[in-house]
């Protein structure tokens, strides 16, 4: 099965089943496996849908010998980004249309359009329509945190994937979260502490 890297304890779209993302090695590379232990009818279809949604939203490739196996074309694991893609894919209703998100978004916080320009070398430059360089840098910092991208030393609004390859769908998906990365991280923390039993004296 490999190493479990993310878990959705209750799938809101399919009978509250638990679905997890595992990272495993195959043919000398790393693959991602969407898995559930549930055997209720339809559970495997739901898993297949999530894997398909991840391939579209995150720009990942389906591995030929398994419906729920995925990988990035570049061969890099992009672990943190994969977790985020999985979490976003689990939120999508099976009846919703699946399409990759674009490289621009309206930022309510700064009341302006934020756009990301891609290059072939896996670098992405964030720009704010109003010329707000501080906001552009903050969004770039958010992308760096969410996808383990490296920040450019020359330009605070530029980040790059360590694999040196472009991942436009992935950046498009993460851009919305990068606008408020603190909220995204807080949500992660809350998810992680849920399900931990504490002594009565420590309960709120």
């Amino acid at each position, binding site marked *: *099965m490999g*190493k*479990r890297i993310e*878990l959705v*304890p*209750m799938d809101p779209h399919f009978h*509250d*089943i*638990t679905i*997890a993302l595992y990272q495993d090695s195959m043919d000398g590379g790393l693959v991602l496996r969407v898995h*559930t*232990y*549930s*055997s*209720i009818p339809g559970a495997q279809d739901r898993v297949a849908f999530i894997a398909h949604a991840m391939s579209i939203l995150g720009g990942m490739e389906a591995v030929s010998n398994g419906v729920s196996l995925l990988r990035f074309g570049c061969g890099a694991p992009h672990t943190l980004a994969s977790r985020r893609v999985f979490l976003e894919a689990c939120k999508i209703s099976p009846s919703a249309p699946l399409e990759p998100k674009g490289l621009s978004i309206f930022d309510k916080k700064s009341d302006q359009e934020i756009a990301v320009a891609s290059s072939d070398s896996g670098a992405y430059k964030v720009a704010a329509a109003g010329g707000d360089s501080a906001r552009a840098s903050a969004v770039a910092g958010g992308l760096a945190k969410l996808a383990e991208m490296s920040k450019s030393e020359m330009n605070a609004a530029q980040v790059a994937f360590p694999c040196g390859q472009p991942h436009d769908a992935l950046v498009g998906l993460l851009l919305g979260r990068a606008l408020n990365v603190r909220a995204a991280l807080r949500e992660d923390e809350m998810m*992680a502490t*849920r*399900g*931990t*039993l504490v*002594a*009565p*004296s*420590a*309960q709120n």
Partner: protein
Amino acid sequence: MVTAPTPVASMTSRQRVLAALRREPVDRTPVCNPTSVATVELMDLVGAPFPDANRVPELMARLAATSYTELGFDTIMPVFSIIQESSALGCKIQWEQKDNWPTVKMREPIWTTPEDIKVPSDLLTHPDTKCVLDAIRILRKEYGNEVAIIGKTMGPWSLGYHCFGVEPFLLMSLDDEGKTKLCLDKMKEITVQFGLAQIEAGADALTLPDHATGDLVSAEYYARYLSELHHEFAERLPVPIILHICGRTVDRLGHIAETGMAAFHYDSKNRPDEAIHAAKNGIALVGNINNPETLFSKGPEQVRCEVIQNLEAGIQLVGPECAIPLQTAIDNLKEIPKAVRDWHRERTSVN
């Protein structure tokens, strides 16, 4: 070290656990969680999710059995939560969903004075206590003498938190020692009645959580309020008792070791070597594998390291420090028995 200097014949899980609780020689260190190893993935695997698995005997038994059948532990513990008898006492319960623990609404206490304390006539027939008794019967019937079945009955200090509220109960203990002792004395009958009923249903041993936790209750408090009561439980409940107290507790381990209880389920805030030293061979120790940082957040390699630390220190039963987080990965849990077996195999081959 409890592992015999001369080889011990192969034991069943039940024999191994009971021998370790008596601090007698074992064929290998047993793997035990006296609290809970339920996870959301195990719930899916056997179709027994929370909250129903806390309220329906068949589901409770089915989920609990995964400890033995899927993870390879030597024990089965069906009482996942700490609220079953409090529900029977009349406390309001938030049952939560699959991914969270049921809790007592302690901000809505049911008692304020010792006179309020009444053991209801339906304590053992209330659906939430009867569920535990029925689940133990199912497990005993299904697994016979193969595996140790552990029950759970809450101690009076924990019941005090649940029924009086944490703050009022602690304030009472500061202001009025006599009143507090009277409350504890009355509540201890709940602990005994529920414990005896579980023994009758087939429990081999009982976990007795009594949350005199290191952060709020001092060693002096433990000696003043609980030591004598715990001694009484060890006398009145005729199976091995495993006391569970969270937090740093080495300062009171000497007192605990004198109660006559069989074992103490101890927290990772205490190092195995210092806990063994403090226990002075007066009580068996179980637990210690860290939950939030190791079992939940790290991988099998780190789990293995902590298991080995416990084995090297001579801890009698190895397992998680407390009820594991519901999102814990199955591979991390399976690593505990695997590491124990490997460690013993290596020692055997060296000798």
